[in-house]
Each structure stands twice: as C-alpha cells, then as structure tokens.
C-alpha cells in the first residue's frame, strides 16, 4: 500500500500480510510509517494506492450493519476525561454492540479494580494506557491492532498485557502490534516485520532475523577450552567481550545445532557454562536497519504506482 501526506510518501509500497492466529510485530525507527500503516489497516485513513483488506473486507466498511470485531489502541489513549473508567469501557462495549459485562471482564483482566469508578481525568499516564488497552480487549475482538501498548506501563502491567496478547493468539485471535520494545517483540511475536522508509525491509520469526539469527552466547570460566571443544565439532565460534559466541543459524552451517547440542559438546569436554542463551536478534537487525542500511527513498516508479 501507498500513502502520502502532502509531498511526503509515508507508505512506499508496504506489502504486509498477517494471518489468523498470528502475533505479528511491526518494528522500525520513528517515521518508518508503522502508525500510518495501522491507521490505513483500520480504515482511519484511506490508502492512496494498493489494496487493503481487514478480516477480508475493505477496512472502511463495516461488516453489514454491525461493528467489526477489531480492538485497537492507536498512539495515545483516547479517553473522555469526565467519564469514569468503567463508563468508558461501557461506552466502547455499547458502541461495539458487545455485552455490557465485557466492561467488568476486561477491567478484571487488567486488574483495574475500583479505580474504574474514578473519572479518567484523575488517572496517571500509565493507568490511562492500561484502560485504553482494556478498552481494546472489549468484545472480545477477533483482531487486536495495538500501537505500542506497553509504553508507560509498570513492569507488572507490562507483563500482564503481554500475557493477555499471548493468550489471545493462543485462542485463535490475531494480534498486529507495533512496538519499540524489541525484547517484548522478540519474546512475544510469532513473526516480526522490520519497517523502514515506508516499506518492509525484513520479515520472519524473530529468532531468524538479522545478522545474529541462530547465534548463541556462552559464558564460561575458560573460554579458550570452550572454543577448542566447539571448533572440534566443528562449530563456528569466536570470543567477544569475555563470552564465546556460537553461530548456528548461518546458511553454511551444517546441521543447525541448538543450545542443547552446544551444552552437550561443552560438557563432554569438561567445560560447564555458567550461562548459555540465544543472542538477541532483533536488536542487531534493528540496528542494521537504522544504521544506514535502510532502503533508499522510493523511486519515481513507486510514486507513479500511487497515481
């Protein structure tokens, strides 16, 4: 899809598909077009070019005479300051033609408790975000579209929201979320798309993205002994910052060994790691995108496609 604001092309041929039951993370630097993509997907904005479908329909039309089953949180929480939290949830439930019991259910899910009796004007930034997330869960929806849902949340609520998203996907629901929390995206998402300059640069399971895909970090008291044992297998490994890095995901790697294979090799050599973990992949993939390797601005041909 394509979308421009004035002379700026914000979405320059974004090609994105999220399947049912997926927990898809959209990540990328500020200005990459993530929020605009979500707005177009929800029908808040119209694409200037391309084809957009939400649950199989044009996102700007409702399913018959009923609201669609889509919950969303786009940018800052949108709350009427003089409504109480519960009234806000009730308003969303009524607007979405969901049962009113939904207001209490989602308040319970996020542990809002008696706070929902207070006007939203008295809420802290984090509580406003929690309430807006709860409002997105009213329905419950088939699809959740969330723009940075854990921004401003305390660790407890952040974990709770992440758990709820995981449970939603586990029950067959679909989640499309945009986030700058790479750690969360890596742990949570079944697939991640890296966006830059209005396009998808890379896409796939988070552990298979970027230069660190399939890499393990091993902390041992004797790195040299570990390197010797691993190279004897042979595994591609090297020493960095006191740790041993083992490459298992490269295309030229035979057999694609996992963490347990590495532990077994080390144990057989009498080397016992104090820590063995998969390298964070998204961080390096993200750095690659934001460090000048991002795609060039759209070509005249891309601009013509909008016409």
């Amino acid at each position, binding site marked *: 899809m394509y979308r421009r*604001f004035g002379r700026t092309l914000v979405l320059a041929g974004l090609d994105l598909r999220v399947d*049912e*039951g997926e927990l898809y993370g959209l990540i990328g630097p500020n200005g990459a077009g993530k929020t605009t993509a979500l*707005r177009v997907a*929800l*029908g*808040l*904005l*119209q694409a200037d070019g391309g084809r957009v479908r939400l649950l199989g329909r044009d*996102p*700007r*039309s*409702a399913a018959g005479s009923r*609201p*669609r089953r*889509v*919950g*969303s949180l*786009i*940018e*800052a929480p*949108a*709350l*009427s*300051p*003089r*409504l109480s939290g519960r*009234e806000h949830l*009730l*308003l*969303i*439930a*009524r*607007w*979405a*033609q*969901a*049962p*009113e*019991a*939904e207001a*209490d*259910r*989602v*308040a*319970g*899910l996020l542990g809002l408790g008696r706070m929902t009796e207070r006007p939203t004007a008295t809420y802290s930034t984090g509580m406003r975000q929690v309430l*807006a997330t709860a*409002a997105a869960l009213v*329905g*419950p929806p*088939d699809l959740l*579209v969330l723009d940075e849902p854990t921004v401003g949340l305390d660790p407890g609520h952040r974990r709770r929201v992440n758990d709820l998203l995981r449970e939603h996907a586990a*029950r*067959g629901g679909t989640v499309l979320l945009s986030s700058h929390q790479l750690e969360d995206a890596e742990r949570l998402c079944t697939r991640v798309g890296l966006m830059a300059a209005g396009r998808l640069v890379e896409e796939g399971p988070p552990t298979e993205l970027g230069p660190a895909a399939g890499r393990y970090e091993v902390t041992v008291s004797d790195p040299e002994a570990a390197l010797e044992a691993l190279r004897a297998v042979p595994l591609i490994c090297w020493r960095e910052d006191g740790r041993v890095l083992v490459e298992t995901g490269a295309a030229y790697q035979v057999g694609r060994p996992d963490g347990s294979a590495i532990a077994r090799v080390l144990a057989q050599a009498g080397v016992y790691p104090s820590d063995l973990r998969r390298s964070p992949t998204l961080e390096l993939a993200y750095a690659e995108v934001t460090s000048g390797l991002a795609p060039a601005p759209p070509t005249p041909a891309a601009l013509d496609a909008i016409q």
Partner: protein
Amino acid sequence: MNRSLAGWRWWGAEGRRLRAPLASRPGHPFAGAVGLRARELARRPAVVAAFSLQATALAGTELLAALGGDGLAGAGDDLVLGGLRATAVPGGLVFGVLVAAVVGAEFAWATERALLARDPRRLRFAGYQLAVAAVLAGAWWAVQSLLAVVVAALLQAGGGIDAGAAWNAPAHRAALAAALAATLLYGLLGAACALVLRGALAGVVALLAYGLLGELVLAARWAPASGWTLYTAAARLAGQGTIPMARAAMVVAVGFAAALGGCLAIYARRQVRD
C-alpha cells in the same frame, strides 16, 4: 459467580470465534452510548455554565420587562410569551456555540479515533454526535420553556396570570415551537461546524463568524439579505419581525437541510490523521 469470574469463563469459551450472547444486551447499544455521553455532558463545567447563562438571561429579561411595565417583544403584559420570544433565537445561538464546543471536544480527546477504529462508518459516528446534540437540545428547550413560565408566573403572581390558559394559547405554542426550532437549528449548525472543522475552537469560531458577524452585522446592513437570514427567520417563527411566515419556515427548513446534508457529506469522507 462474580462479574470478573463470569468474564473469564466467557473469555475462555471454546471455539475460535467468540460471539456475544445477545440476551445480555440491555436496550439499544447506540441509544446506550448516546445516554452515556449525555450523562458525561452534564458533568462538564461548560455545559453547566451555558445553561446558567441561559437561565440568567431569561429571568433577567422578564424581570426587566416586569419592572419597566412596557411589555416585552410585542407581547404586552404576557411575560411568558415575551420571555420566550426575546430569548428563543439568541438562546439558540448560545446553544449552537455550546454544541460546537462539546462535539469538537471529541477531536481533542481523540475519542473519535477509538470509536471509528471499532466501527468505521462515518455516518454512524456523525449520527451519534447529532443524537447527543439532540438530547442536549431537548434539555435546553425544556429548561428554557419551564423557566419562561415559572419566572413569569412568579413575577405576574400579583397580576393573576392564568398559567393554564397561557400554556394552551396558540401564540405560546408557536413561541415554544420556534424556540425548539431555533435550538435545533443552531445546535445542528454548531455540531456541523465542529464535525467539519474537527475541533471545538474552530467550530465555535466558525459558528460565531456566521451567526454574529455574517447574519447580525453584515446581512443586517444589506437589505436584500436581511430578510433571508436564519436569525430573522427563526425570530419570525417566534412571533417577531415582519417577513412572511412561509418564507421564514422555508429559510429555517432549507438551513436545517443544508447544514445536515453538508455536514454528513463532508464527514463521510473523513480521514483520521490526528
């Protein structure tokens, strides 16, 4: 079973598509949403201030007329009629400003975005806003009418006002109908300005520019236009002015239809950028 437990059980219902049980819906959801919003409006200081302003203006007008003893708005000693005639159209304009402010606030709070993301039908959202404005208009008109009678009755108590006869008189019914028409017309104009310009301040400024500057200042200075303004027409319906009644009714009806049609046609293409 408490509510949250019930929620958990429902959330955990089997099947990939969880559907809402229709039986648990009390009343019409759209009406319920309008009701909640109307309740929220009653808590806003701007709404309370506008209602107080209207009440003070009406009571003050009738009090001054009673003290002066020279009648009000061509209604002679009838303070009920005089009060309604004198305040119907200016009150409608004030009400329009109020509606522009409350409808425009939705854009500042971005609640429009949250609702349109759930249901992208622009006309449903515009209808929701207009329904809220209509509820507010009903309250405004009821308060205005009641106050006109109560204050006049209190002031005329010494003169022996016959409240029942006054209420049933055709002139009073016409004044009440005109007050309702002016309230609805200016309320619709206010809502339309806020919806089209996507903000409270822009909506209020646009309405005041049209209602005060356009109709009361500029049109009043140009004879051909002065008999065709909404203000003049609404005032004529209330029993003031000299333009033909048919023209007054037509101007009000056309103004209403144009504001409604224009607002819906423009808002139907709304792109939510903010």
